[in-house]
């Protein structure tokens, strides 16, 4: 009976006690197992639902695609370690399997509302999921480079995005120009859609600088004798070992770093791309032909982030990402009680950050479900 008394207050903790499970049928008890819905099966969605399930909650992970893993599925190597993206996906999938997370793939959410303290999530196949808490991990999209029309993406064949280059790496095929030639010069344009008031994105996307350094090194590795040029405003090597990678790019791989924002790109007769840029260190306008131009596209709030946010009445910050209850201490908590965030739907983040965030969000969600109400501190000023 002591157990039952305990269960009234905090049942979830005891579910994993096999001894208890053997004694009673938990579902018959007055207090039901609390439910959580996690929206989005990227890194943060997978990791947080793994932890939440392990903690004893009835978790459903909803993913619109046919596979878990999100954007990481299309990424070959990770900065700064050059380890494989697929290793991380494997790690995440093992978690899902171990905890036996309930996963709904190919599921499109058409409505999500809160009625009383219960969330109701409608899918396009007519099913309705109910839960006591929702963890939103809807992630990011890459910036649509066509908005920077002057860089010629979608117009010139040899202008590609960093995400497309990564897919090329992943495919294992040779890196070739559109006409099938081996490029002799490859340019990387930093800050495409980031720190650019003209396209309405004033923030730094955080990961593109070091991605450019990583991709430039990989290009150098894969294509002997190729020249690589990075056109940057300034290089933000904030993470551990990033600076070392940058140094390695310069010293070992002789990647050229040119400080200056690209003004425009145009196509030559032979399909190569002429870039116009001001070298702000030399103080001169510069023209250069490259065979392949890679645009380091920034991170923008995903379509899913926007639609789910609107459905659930979540607050958006000035940059269009979700607005946390507090930028320092409550980054995973939303304005709607019971709705939590993790990952890039709040801000651009590296994989390392996303893991930390996902686990933190799982903890916050659990704290809410157990009625600890610790997050209410923020309102008691």
């Amino acid at each position, binding site marked *: 009976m002591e157990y039952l008394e305990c269960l009234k207050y905090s049942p979830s903790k005891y579910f994993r006690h096999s001894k208890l499970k053997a004694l009673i049928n938990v579902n018959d008890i007055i207090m039901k197992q609390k439910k959580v819905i996690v929206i989005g099966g990227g890194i943060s969605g997978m990791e947080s639902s793994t932890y939440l399930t392990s903690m004893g909650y009835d978790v459903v992970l909803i993913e619109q695609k046919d596979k878990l893993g999100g954007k990481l599925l299309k990424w070959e190597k990770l900065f700064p370690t050059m380890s494989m993206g697929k290793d991380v996906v494997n790690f995440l999938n093992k978690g899902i399997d171990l905890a036996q997370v309930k996963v709904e793939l190919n599921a499109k959410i058409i409505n999500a509302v809160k009625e009383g303290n219960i969330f109701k999530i409608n899918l396009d196949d007519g099913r309705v999921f109910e839960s006591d808490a929702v963890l939103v991990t809807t992630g990011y999209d890459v910036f649509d480079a066509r908005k920077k*029309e*002057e860089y010629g993406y979608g*117009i010139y064949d040899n202008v590609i995005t960093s995400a497309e280059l990564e897919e090329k790496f992943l495919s294992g095929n040779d890196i070739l120009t559109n006409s099938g030639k081996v490029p002799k010069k490859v340019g990387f344009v930093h800050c495409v859609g980031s720190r650019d*008031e003209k396209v*309405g994105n004033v923030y730094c996307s955080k990961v593109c600088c070091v991605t450019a350094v990583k991709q430039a090194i990989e290009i150098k590795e894969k294509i002997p004798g190729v020249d690589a040029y990075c056109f940057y405003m300034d290089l933000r090597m904030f993470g551990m070992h990033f600076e070392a990678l940058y140094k390695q790019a310069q010293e070992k791989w002789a990647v050229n770093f040119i400080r200056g924002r690209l003004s425009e790109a145009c*196509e030559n007769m032979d399909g190569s791309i*002429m870039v116009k840029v001001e070298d702000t260190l030399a103080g001169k306008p510069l023209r250069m032909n490259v065979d392949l131009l890679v645009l380091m596209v920034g991170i923008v709030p995903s379509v899913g982030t926007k639609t789910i946010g609107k459905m659930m009445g979540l607050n958006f910050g000035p940059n269009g990402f979700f607005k946390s209850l507090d930028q320092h201490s409550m980054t995973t908590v939303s304005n709607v009680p019971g709705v939590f965030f993790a990952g890039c739907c709040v801000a651009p983040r590296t994989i390392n950050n996303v893991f930390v965030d996902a686990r933190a969000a799982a903890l916050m969600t659990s704290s809410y479900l157990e009625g600890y109400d610790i997050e209410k501190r923020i309102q008691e000023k």
Partner: protein
Amino acid sequence: MNFHPFVIPFSIGFIVLIFILLYKYFSLFYRLDHQDKSKIYKGVFSLKFFKAIKEVFLESLLHRKIFRVNPLLGYMHTSLAFGWFLIIIGGTVESKVHSHMALKMPYDPVFFNFFNTDLSMYRWANEFNFIMDFLLLIVLSGVCLAFVKRFYSKAFGMKKTSVLKPFDKIALYTLWLIFPLRFFAESFSAGLYNNGGFLTGTAGVFFSSFLPLKNLLVPTWWAYSISLGAFFVALPFSRYMHIPTEIFLIFLRNFGVKTDKIFSSFTELEVLSCPRCGICLDKCQLLKSAEISDTQNVYFLQSLRNKQLNENNTFDCLLCGRCQEFCPVGINLNNIRISQRKHFFPENNNFEYLQPIAIATPKASVIYFAGCMTHLTPTIKLAMTGIFEAAGVDYLFLDKDSSICCGRPLMIAGEYTKANELIEKNKKAIIESGAKTLVTSCPICYKMFNEDYDLNIEVLHHTQYLLQLTEKQIIKINKTNKKVVYHDPCELGRGSGIFNEPRELISHLADISKIKEEKEEALCCGGSLGSVNLSFNKRNNIRKDVLSVLQEGNPDLIITACPLCKKTLQNGANTEVKDIAELVMQNIQNQ
């Protein structure tokens, strides 16, 4: 001869006014340059003179343009100006009819009812009384409206940036007093001598029932005369200077004098002609969308007159020209603003390093100048080159690899000398090419080539050129069933008067629907080069408001004809935005 000491204030004021005006206008005329002067000499003896008289009648008196924009405001101006004018004419005729004397003192018609109390002796006395009372009533209604407008607009928070100067105050208060005082003076006369028309006669009977009219009569005429005299003295130093100045402005403008790049004494005339009607406020997108409320031209001209210009009120302007389009006085607002900009920045760019574009032989009959903005929107550039190829036109892409700016951005920043350096370099290449036609995709360049290059060849914007190609059936295009709207670029529409060609061309391509504010009223996209200070936030707000107009009827496509407009609009629109050339290229049938 009729005389009473109270006529003295009026007479002094009148003489002072005449002398000051003569002095001012003579000195303005004297400072005009030689060319402008000869235009005036020629104009006086031409039909333009009569055209100007007609315009003075329509605008200075009837205020037709204000009527068009705002009928109530129009009535206010007309009732005051035309009413007063008719009172002067009516009074003069009345006094002439009465005494048959050719020469009279100028005050005679003004104080006619004081001096002529026995009206039984002359013909049409009743008719004149009726007419003069009727005109007085009209003017009084205008004064009432002016009263209401002042407090009504204040109640709606219309911002007044500077306090009225002393002379403005004197002029304003005396102007408000003149006609009520005339009403009282004439009514008192009418009450005493049992005459007057339907207004003053009736009022006279009414006042005589409880007022000692005998004692009040002369002081009231004194007050009337003083208010007139004070108004006349204050007028040349107040904003009411616009009343006489506009007449001169209309004549000079009809003779072909205009404000071009340099602030001339004609520009001074324009500045003085601003009646501060505030129509420019209504039309300004900065006020409506960007919360900038102190740089509109009514305030700008005021600051210019009071020598209070600063960087903000000179540069915070899209130069979209909407206010200019609706300015009832037709002041060349954009040019005046541009002429002031050079005072804020020294012209210190050095363009010596730029080499004119080398022209390769063989030469071509058509040259295409894409312009910097088109290079930043390469879809337009590719569409144009595609069309040239498809049409089999012998063309030369002048700024394909290297280009020199047309100079317009420098021009609108007031840096004429430097802009001219660029003009010379480009002009050299254009002339060397031997082409007969210059086609550009950018309305900013188009306006520049058209107005400042002095080229002896045909200059066409691509909307015009593509329409020509279509009409001559050099290119054949399919009509789609898309529902589209057209966004008028400022520099092409209001700036260059090209409204119809793009619409005609689109009608060959798709179904074009009308939008709320188009053609002369078209809104600026917010991307304007007119202001470099304007924050992106404010620009985005402007764009948002424009897009809500464009997207109102849920069109399939927004069409524009300017690379800058396209670039600006497409980053905020839910609808696809295309340049007209792209649409032509997509639907071209030529192989």
